[in-house]
């Protein structure tokens, strides 16, 4: 359609002023660009609404306190100018009591209490317990609260409430990095027995690097063999790589459950061969070992396929030339062949690394406790502990890390060079 239109304009404009020609040409090109973009537009909008908007909302959720401010709306207004260095004014206390009465009736006090409890463990019972009595409290409220529960004499709980009902909060990001704000607002590490996320990020990183290296170690020889064999054999052997690739993730994880159990096939074989006694069966599953073995198996095709597609294009003449010029085979391999496989190595490794950083299903099923990755904790906070702000903060950190890697990948390899199967 565009071709015809352009042709039309070209013939029509031949007789005209060259300046108009230029303008018209520019117009035509712009129209073609718009036309090309119109093809992309439906998908662009679809991905934007179905995918990009959710990501943005998640990023917003990671700095928001949620409904706390609406539930304790009087307190939010009253606390605006309070410095937090000492006990709050009677006015604030009155606002809080009024809010508590209302929240108790609406059954929303539990929500606020849970949120305050994130920053001040143990405060949940103080708030819900006081809320239960709130209706009977009389002015002066500050004293009445202190009688209801001595915890109200400590500014700490007031500060925590103020933080919990502020519209915007850094608390979830701090928590995602094992940090918190102390009473004076300084950022400090949480107590050692509550520190976990840095450990998890580091563990995810280490296991991902380990799995990526294992995939490269196992994938490289296979890709090399496939690339060097005649097509007839290579295609046949390729099936052994593609079949796992096309098989459901959960099927492969199940297979490893069956294989790695202490009464499973692998331990049976070891016992049968006399490598270990029946009583010394190895613990290969429900720990990091299980996670690494199963994930390496699942991700291996993602290394082999890009490596293979690069190796297939490498002409054998260079290595032959090097060898005929006197290079030892190993020298020829490392100095001549290996550098040419770099794009494949980069593509395969980055792909596997990116995928393993976000793996969830396999560690959840075979990882036990020390084989859990950061993604398992994101799921935990979404589904179980319901700390959605923290889940969003952890996800956003992970997302940022992946986007940087993605950008790097694009820079080094080019996303358009990505091939499948």
């Amino acid at each position, binding site marked *: 359609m565009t071709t015809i239109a352009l042709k039309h304009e070209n013939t029509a404009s031949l007789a005209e002023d060259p300046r108009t020609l230029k303008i018209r040409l520019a117009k035509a090109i712009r129209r073609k660009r718009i036309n090309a973009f119109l093809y992309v537009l439906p998908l662009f909008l679809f991905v934007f609404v179905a995918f990009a908007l959710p990501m943005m909302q998640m990023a917003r959720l990671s700095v928001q306190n949620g409904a706390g401010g609406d539930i304790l709306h009087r307190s939010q207004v009253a606390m605006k100018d309070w410095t937090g260095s000492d006990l709050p004014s009677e006015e604030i206390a009155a606002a809080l009591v009024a809010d508590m009465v209302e929240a108790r009736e609406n059954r929303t006090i539990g929500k606020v209490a849970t949120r305050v409890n994130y920053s001040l463990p143990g405060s949940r019972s103080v708030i819900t317990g006081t809320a239960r009595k709130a209706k009977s409290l009389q002015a002066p409220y500050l004293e009445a609260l202190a009688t209801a529960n001595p915890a109200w004499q400590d500014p700490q709980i007031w500060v925590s409430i103020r933080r919990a009902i502020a519209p915007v909060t850094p608390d979830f990001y701090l928590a995602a990095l094992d940090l918190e704000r102390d009473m004076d607002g300084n950022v400090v590490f949480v107590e050692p027995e509550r520190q976990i996320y840095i450990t998890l990020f580091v563990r995810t990183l280490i296991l991902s690097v380990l799995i990526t290296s294992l995939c490269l170690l196992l994938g490289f020889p296979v890709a090399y063999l496939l690339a060097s064999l005649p097509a007839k054999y290579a295609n046949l052997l390729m099936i052994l790589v593609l079949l796992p690739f096309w098989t459901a993730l959960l099927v492969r994880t199940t297979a490893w459950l069956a294989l790695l159990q202490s009464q*499973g096939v692998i331990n049976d074989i070891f016992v049968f061969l006399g490598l270990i006694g029946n009583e010394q069966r190895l613990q290969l599953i429900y720990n990091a070992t299980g996670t690494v073995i199963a994930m390496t198996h699942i991700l291996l095709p993602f290394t082999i396929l890009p490596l293979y597609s690069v190796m297939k294009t490498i002409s054998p003449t260079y290595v032959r030339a090097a060898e005929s010029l006197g290079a030892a085979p190993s020298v020829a391999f490392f100095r001549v062949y290996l550098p040419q496989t770099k794009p494949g190595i980069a593509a395969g490794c980055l792909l596997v690394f990116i995928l393993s950083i976000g793996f969830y299903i396999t560690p959840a099923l075979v990882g036990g406790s020390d084989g859990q990755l950061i993604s398992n904790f994101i799921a935990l906070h979404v589904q179980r502990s319901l700390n959605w702000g923290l889940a969003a903060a952890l996800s956003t950190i992970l997302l940022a890390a992946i986007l940087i890697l993605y950008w790097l990948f694009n820079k080094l390899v080019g996303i358009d060079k990505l091939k499948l199967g």
Partner: protein
Amino acid sequence: MALPPYKTALQRAWHYSFRGICGLIFVFLIAPLLIVAPLSFNVEPYFSFTPGMLAFEPEAYSTRWYENIVNLGMVNPDASYAEGWWKDMWENAQWIRAIKNSFFIGIFSALIATALGTLAALGLSKPEMPFRAAITGFLISPMIVPIIVTATGMYFFYATIGIAKTYVGVIVAHATLGVPFVVITVTATLSGFDHNLTRAALSLGATPWTAFHKVIMPLILPGMISGGLFAFVTSFDDVVVMLFLGDLEQRTVPRQMWSGIREQISPTILAVATILVLFSIALLTVAELLRRRSERLQGIAK
């Protein structure tokens, strides 16, 4: 492949040990998939070969776990076929319902992904396409972003617009995950495409639709189908999005397997796994045939 006679003994040794290593890696790749089949016929509820199985005693094997797939959830599995057994199975059996859901969700999300993805790939392959790299990067990002992050974000967002825990929500989410595969494969088929063919068709009087239908379509069809297959498999494979966005009503096969594994790892799961391995062999065959056809066609087009 015989080795040339001039190779040294050391090189020969390396050659064969290299093949041996590769052989072991192939075993590592494929053995886990093959092991599930015999184990699924175990008469005992264990994940291990019993002595009876190793001795090939017929009574050590059984198809009870396969029957279990069909029976689970049925109101009256003992009814005769005439008494409405089939209807009962079709409507109530949990795994059957999961299979129906898997295909329904998979097919719809693959269709959406293929339609939108192909259109976009046509645009992206035009030389005039502005911001091509950035837009491609954006469209492919659902594949790169960890599934757990995607599912978390979608869960929060879809809940606010009211499509979490619905078929619409799950299908939209799966279509988004399938889009990158379609864009990649169709763009790849188009990269070998000679635009002169369209021009020739148009100059010979074909309408644009005829040109697309008769010239472009046959050439990119293998790419479309294999992209669609990828999208289908992505949906068919998914557990995480289902865990967050799906409900009992939408439960798919992998989601049902997930519950099964967490609740009680009976060999029923292995029986389902065996069926799924057979299914993936079928998918692989289709994909392979398509690839060959695509190679042939590209040869003609060039």
